[in-house]
């Protein structure tokens, strides 16, 4: 009595039987089949199992005459081809993502251009300029407050 084959060997034999094995893996299995009687017995058993599964392969219904005409008639009674809601949602999400990506890319380019053109210092006002702007704002606020009290 031969030792049971491991599942991985049975799975390998299934791939071989299904024609899904190729290249070095196929060559390696053929070499093993020539040398290992238990593997050959396993292959025979997998082939027999496959024949058993396929035993009722030719048992099938056939379309009755006029089947296509009946489907065509039913298709004429259908409403207009529906727009799949799920597909539409996915399309909308894709569009939003594309727009967001484009905005982000444009922002990064703008930031990069500023940095490249003048360095980080170009984004800052000089101390005296900053003071002048603050004084100007203070003056406006005081003027509005005075106007408001006058009214």
């Amino acid at each position: 009595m031969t030792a049971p084959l491991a599942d991985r060997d049975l799975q390998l034999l299934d791939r071989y039987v299904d024609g899904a094995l190729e290249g070095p893996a196929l060559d390696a299995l053929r070499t093993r089949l020539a040398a290992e009687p238990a593997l050959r017995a396993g292959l025979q058993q997998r082939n027999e199992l496959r024949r058993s599964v396929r035993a009722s392969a030719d048992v099938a219904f056939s379309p009755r005459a006029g089947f296509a005409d009946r489907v065509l008639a039913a298709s004429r009674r259908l409403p207009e081809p529906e727009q799949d809601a799920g597909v539409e949602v996915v399309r909308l999400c894709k569009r939003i993502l594309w727009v967001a990506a484009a905005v982000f890319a444009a922002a990064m380019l703008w930031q990069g251009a500023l940095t490249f053109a003048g360095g980080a210092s170009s984004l800052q006002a000089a101390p005296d300029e900053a003071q002048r702007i603050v004084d100007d704002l203070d003056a406006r606020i005081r003027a509005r407050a005075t106007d408001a009290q006058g009214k």
Partner: protein
Amino acid sequence: MPSSDPELIAAILGGSESAFAELMGRYQDRIFRLLSRYTRDALECEDLAQEVFLKVFRKLHTFQHDSQFYTWLYRIAVNTATDHLARRSRRRLQLVEDDAVLDAGTPRSEQQDVSTPLIQRELAEVARKILDRMPEKYRTILLLREYEDLSYTDIAGVLGIQLGTVESRLFRARQRFKEMLERLHPEHAPSRGGDQ
């Protein structure tokens, strides 16, 4: 001159009924054959096939052409059949395991072909009963591989699963079939090989 699937699809989307009829004619036998594995009733099989082709008609504009048309069609057919089985199971109107139902609805080719050797016919019936009783995911993958002869890649496309999953699920399905055959009908089980 025969048209390719993409040409027919373009014509159908343009409103051609004859193109749709041609596409149906091209695939209806395959779809009936596949659906015959999910029902034993000829009229039910035809209803399912009609449902499949009407879904194709309604959804054709969503077909992406990034896979073969028949892969997409099989996916619709498998989903329609399994949804149908789930509904029927919930309603409990008809049990596949009911032998009376099974015998009453046996497809013609099996009932009438007396030239087929008796043992082969018996094995065919046994195989069918076992497939009927298998979990749906195992039955479907066996049907796609053994009856429809789809490659692993096509099966992965139809079921929306990875290639590795196809291999492992197919292996487990065959093991399940073998166990059921040995338990229920040992007289038809494969000769003892290297895996017992």
